[in-house]
């Protein structure tokens, strides 16, 4: 008996396929599929989030917000904003469980936002620049409209579904770096409203201003202020503009609304309370 190990041809225990070909097939196919599924899921989440009871949203929000603002005595400006917000809430016919809570943020950032549980945050920087009550009401009405249309929970629904889907994919991949990449992308989408939502909020805001004051004069002041700020210090608040429709379009919408609802009645803008300026003086400056 003869023992020998003859030379065996290559490529029996291995594949001859070029690894790059496999790479492009796999990444193209799988990432494409994942993208389609995730987009479908997020759209679904966006639709279904509306059916989450508002009470649950409030519960979610209180866990975060009450911790931060629990023992701070509310300043007079907050009381004023809350009263104004309540008036607007009545005009927008908010369901009784939708309680609006306005928080005043002593910061020079020119911004305002609405979040879960009917909480609005108004920044000193923006309030300082508003010349009359109608402009303040426009900001409030816009943010309250976001709450009314359940935009915060819908955005969160989208974000959570996206994050979950990405988490599942990346855990299957078992790759720390991909994990990181996907998680970051998921986080970006949380709590950002899209342009359609902004336009919807603008429309509702104008309706309620019209009901409140009989005209929408002064509503465009808000956008004039924002436009001015973006020209002056664009670095300060780019995020507000990136997701909001162009201010010019929004002003045009207001003017269209004005011509449609032109009235001959008194169109004076309501003044701000006398103490308004004093209320806004920063705590640190006092």
């Amino acid at each position, binding site marked *: *008996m003869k*023992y*020998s*190990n003859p*030379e065996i041809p*290559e490529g029996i*225990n*291995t*594949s001859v*396929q070029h*690894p*790059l070909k*496999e*790479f492009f097939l*796999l*990444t193209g*196919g*799988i990432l494409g599929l994942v993208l389609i599924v995730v987009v479908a899921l997020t759209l679904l989440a966006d639709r279904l989030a509306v059916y989450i009871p508002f009470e649950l949203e409030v519960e979610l929000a209180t866990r975060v917000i009450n911790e931060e603002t629990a023992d701070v005595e509310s300043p007079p400006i907050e009381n004023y904003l809350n009263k104004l917000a309540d008036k607007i809430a009545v005009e927008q016919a908010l369901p009784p469980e939708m309680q609006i809570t306005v928080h005043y943020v002593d910061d020079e950032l020119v911004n305002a936002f609405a979040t879960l549980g009917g909480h609005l945050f108004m920044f000193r920087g923006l309030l300082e620049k508003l010349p009359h009550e109608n402009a303040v009401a426009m900001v409030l009405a816009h943010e309250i409209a976001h709450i009314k249309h359940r935009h915060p929970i819908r955005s969160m629904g989208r974000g959570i579904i996206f994050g979950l889907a990405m988490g599942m*994919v990346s*855990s*299957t*991949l*078992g*790759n*720390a*770096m*991909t994990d*990181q*990449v996907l998680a*970051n992308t998921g986080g970006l989408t949380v709590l950002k409203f899209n342009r359609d939502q902004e336009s919807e909020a603008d429309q509702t805001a104008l309706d309620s201003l019209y009901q409140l004051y009989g005209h929408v004069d002064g509503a465009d002041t808000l956008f004039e202020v924002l436009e001015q700020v973006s020209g002056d210090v664009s670095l300060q608040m780019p995020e507000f503009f990136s997701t909001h429709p162009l201010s010019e379009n929004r002003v045009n919408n207001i003017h269209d609304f004005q011509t449609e609802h032109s009235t001959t009645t008194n169109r004076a803008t309501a003044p701000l309370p006398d103490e308004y300026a004093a209320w806004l003086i920063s705590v640190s400056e006092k």
Partner: protein
Amino acid sequence: MADLIIFLVLLAMGYGFGRYAEAKHYKSIIQREAEFRDIPVVTSKFPPLTKPLSDVELVTGSVVISVDYFKRFIAGLRNLVGGRVTAYETLLDRARREAILRMQEEARAFGGYIIFNVKLETSSIHKGRKNSIGAVEVLAYGTVLIKQ
């Protein structure tokens, strides 16, 4: 964005170095296999009876090869859809052949002329995050016959 760039750089590095190392390794394997062809490696449990009386020794050859970043990524994607994990096939093929070669090298040092009852064992060492395979170890061992 920075993360994505880091990821792509790692992927490109894994591919570049991995391909280079693999090509170099295969070249060396094929060359040394020709060199050691005179020491047959057989899996028969019993020593060839026709051979002259011999001394016997245990010989082992073991190798650890790491997976590169590119291979791990492809294999991860492969996990989702199933199919041949071609990225790991070459890795294990290299490891097995290298282990046998090292065993043959040891046999030659003893002055052996045939290795019988050869067995191969494979294990993945350093299971990385979420059980991703970091490196494989292949151990080949057998009994070498040495002419008295």
